[in-house]
C-alpha cells in the first residue's frame, strides 16, 4: 500500500474532516441506490474536488474491481484527495449511516418480520426490487453491448450460473479469463472507442 501517493495532479487543500462529512451526507441521503449519481453531484458539481474525466476514470476502475461502486468510489476518490487517510474517512462516512439503519432493520425484522402484514409488504418490496434491479442492469447492458463478444460473454455468464449451475467463482474465472482474452491487446476491432455515456446519463 502506498500512503499519501502523489496521485492528485493538483494539490487540493481538502481536510479529512471535510471528506468525512461530505461522504457522511451522501451515505445518509442516497436513498434508493444510484449512489454514483449522488457522488458525481457532490464531488464534481458542488465541491469541484474532481473533474469529470477523473471521475469517469475512477468509475471504470471501480467497475473492474470486486466491491460495490458506492464503497469503491469512496475509497478511490478519498485516496485521490488525501491519500489513504482520505480513503478511510470517505469509506467510513459512506458506510456508517446504512450500517446503523440496517442493524436496526435486523432488530425490527426479528420482532415484527413474521407478522402477516409485514411479510405481505416485504413480498411487495421484493417484487419491486426485482423490477428496479432489472431496469438498472438493462440500462447498463444497453450501453455496454457494442459487439458480438459483449453479448456472447453476458450470455455465457448467465447460462453458466442458471443453466449449468456452476458457482460464481468458477464462472468468474473461466468466462472472465476467456473474455479478457477475447479483448486482448492489438486485436483489430476489439477496442472500440471508450464510451462512458452511460455514466453521464445518471445525471
Amino acid at each position, binding site marked *: 500500500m502506498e500512503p499519501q501517493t502523489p496521485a492528485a495532479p493538483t494539490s487540493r487543500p481538502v481536510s479529512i474532516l471535510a471528506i468525512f462529512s461530505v461522504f457522511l451526507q451522501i451515505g445518509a441521503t442516497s436513498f434508493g441506490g444510484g449512489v454514483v449519481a449522488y457522488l458525481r453531484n457532490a464531488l464534481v458539481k458542488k465541491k469541484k474536488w474532481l473533474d469529470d474525466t477523473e471521475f469517469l476514470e475512477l468509475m471504470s*476502475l471501480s467497475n473492474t474491481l470486486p466491491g460495490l461502486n458506492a464503497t469503491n468510489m469512496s475509497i478511490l476518490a478519498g485516496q485521490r484527495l488525501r491519500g489513504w487517510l482520505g480513503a478511510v474517512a470517505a469509506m467510513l462516512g459512506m458506510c456508517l449511516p446504512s450500517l446503523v439503519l440496517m442493524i436496526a432493520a435486523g432488530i425490527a425484522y426479528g420482532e415484527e418480520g413474521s407478522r402477516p402484514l409485514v411479510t*405481505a409488504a416485504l413480498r411487495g418490496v421484493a417484487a419491486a426490487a*426485482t423490477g428496479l434491479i432489472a431496469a438498472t442492469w438493462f440500462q447498463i447492458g444497453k450501453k455496454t453491448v457494442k459487439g458480438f463478444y459483449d453479448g456472447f460473454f453476458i450470455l455465457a455468464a448467465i447460462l453458466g450460473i442458471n443453466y449449468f449451475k456452476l458457482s460464481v467463482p468458477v464462472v468468474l474465472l473461466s468466462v472472465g479469463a476467456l473474455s479478457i482474452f477475447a479483448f486482448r491487446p492489438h486485436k483489430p476491432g476489439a477496442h472500440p472507442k471508450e464510451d462512458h455515456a452511460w455514466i453521464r446519463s445518471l445525471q
Partner: protein
Amino acid sequence: MDQIPAIARVFAYLSLLTIGGGMAAFPEMKNLVIDVHHWLTYPQLIHIYSVGQISPGPNMMMVATIGERVAGIPGALVAAIAFFVPTGILTLFVGGLWKRLENWPWRSSIQKGLAPVAIGLAVAGLITFGRTAVTGWVTVAVALLVFAASMRTRLNPALLILGGAVVGAFALR
C-alpha cells in the same frame, strides 16, 4: 456467538465475488446463507436483500442485517467488516497502482473483458432472485410496473419500492 468465525469467512468470501455489484454474488450468498449454514430461510433472505435496496449508501449493507439475525450486533459488525474491508484494501492498493499502469495494454483488455461478465453475473443473480421474489400475478405486476417506471421516469427508486410495500400489504395478505 459461535457463528462469528463463519460469518467472517462467508462475507469476506462473498465480497470478492461482487464484480460489478452485489447481485453477482447473490447465487453464492443463497447457497452459503441458506443451504450451507441455515442462517435464514430463503424468503427471509429475499426480504432482507430487498430492504437493503432502499437503504442509502452501499446497497449491500444488508449483510449487517444478516449478521444481526445470526449473532446480534457483534455478528452485524463482523459481517460488515468482513464484507467491506478486504475489498476496500484491494481497491486502495490497486487505486495507487492503476494510474501507473496506464500504458499497460492489458489494462483496457481487463476492463473491457470484465464488463460483459459483470453484467452476465448480475443478470444471473437477478434470475435466481426473481424466481422466488416474483411468483403470482400481483408480484409480476409490481415488478413490471417498477421496471417501466424506472425506465421512463426519474422517480426516486426508494419511492417505487415503498409503493411495492403498500401494494404488497394490501394485495398479498
